[in-house]
């Protein structure tokens, strides 16, 4: 018999083999749950960092705004004082 025919005959024979039975349902669900919580953690962390960064930015923006306000109102205050003195 040619090698090829033997190969085909053995293949046909091998088709009737019964594979070992497996039950992976429990493990698959456990892996998927773990994966889900990992994804949730990953998505939560950037949000926390974003909140912290925006808070820091807001605080520094307020400080700068107060400083600018003070700097800009200073000369006006002097002028208004001078005007009120002249009026009196």
């Amino acid at each position, binding site marked *: 018999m040619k090698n090829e025919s033997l190969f085909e005959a053995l293949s046909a024979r091998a088709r009737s083999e*019964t594979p*070992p039975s497996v039950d992976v349902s429990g493990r*698959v*669900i456990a892996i998927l749950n773990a994966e889900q919580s990992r994804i949730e953690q990953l998505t939560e962390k950037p949000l926390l960092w974003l909140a912290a960064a925006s808070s820091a930015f807001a605080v520094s923006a307020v400080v700068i705004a107060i400083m600018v306000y003070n700097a800009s109102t200073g000369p006006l205050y002097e002028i208004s004082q001078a005007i009120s003195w002249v009026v009196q």
Partner: protein
Amino acid sequence: MVLSILPGRIVSLRAERLLVELVYSLMDSEFVAEDRQKTNASLAAELHDVRLSRQGDSDAYTRLIKQHQSQVSRMLWRFSRDPLVHEELVQDVFVEAYLSLRSYREKAPFGHWLSRIATRIGYRYWKQIARRGETESFSLAEWDQLPDKSPDEMDPGRAADLLHRLLAQLRPRDRLVLTLRYLEGCDVAETARRTGWTKSLVKIQSLRARKRLKKLFAQAGKGLRE
């Protein structure tokens, strides 16, 4: 029985036989219709489970796993005969299937879609072991000792094991096409569907793989058994 259907009439043997055939064919068509109804019902239930799984229902996905794991296990047994690796591959199929569940378009049965994923995962595993250079041992002397006349009497497990180790000597691509065509008994269309290749590519690849298999025998100085 036929005579009782037609009381008071003499029915010839030929007519009786025809009537019996008619009754049986009617019964058969009823069974076929019933089977079709059951199949449709199970497909609808499966689709419902797929949709629930997409929404995160783990019970629905457990039902899908239980329904398809024996089919997936049978396919992946061709890719690894190590029980631990095999189980891990089966598990990987269902994990990957869940993660890409949104790409399932519901045009073909869920099992067909799973078989593509199973083939991809098995092939990926072969490519990994080929990269690591872990080839399973095989001696062509084993092949030569096989009885010429009665491979049909051989234990299916032994035949599968022998072919598995023989095909492991080939490149993953050749091994894949020969495994699907011969061990799984897939035709060109089914092989193309499972591999994602075109039909012409499957034909060319089968031809090349068979040539390489012949070369393997020739290299061992065995050539053709005649």
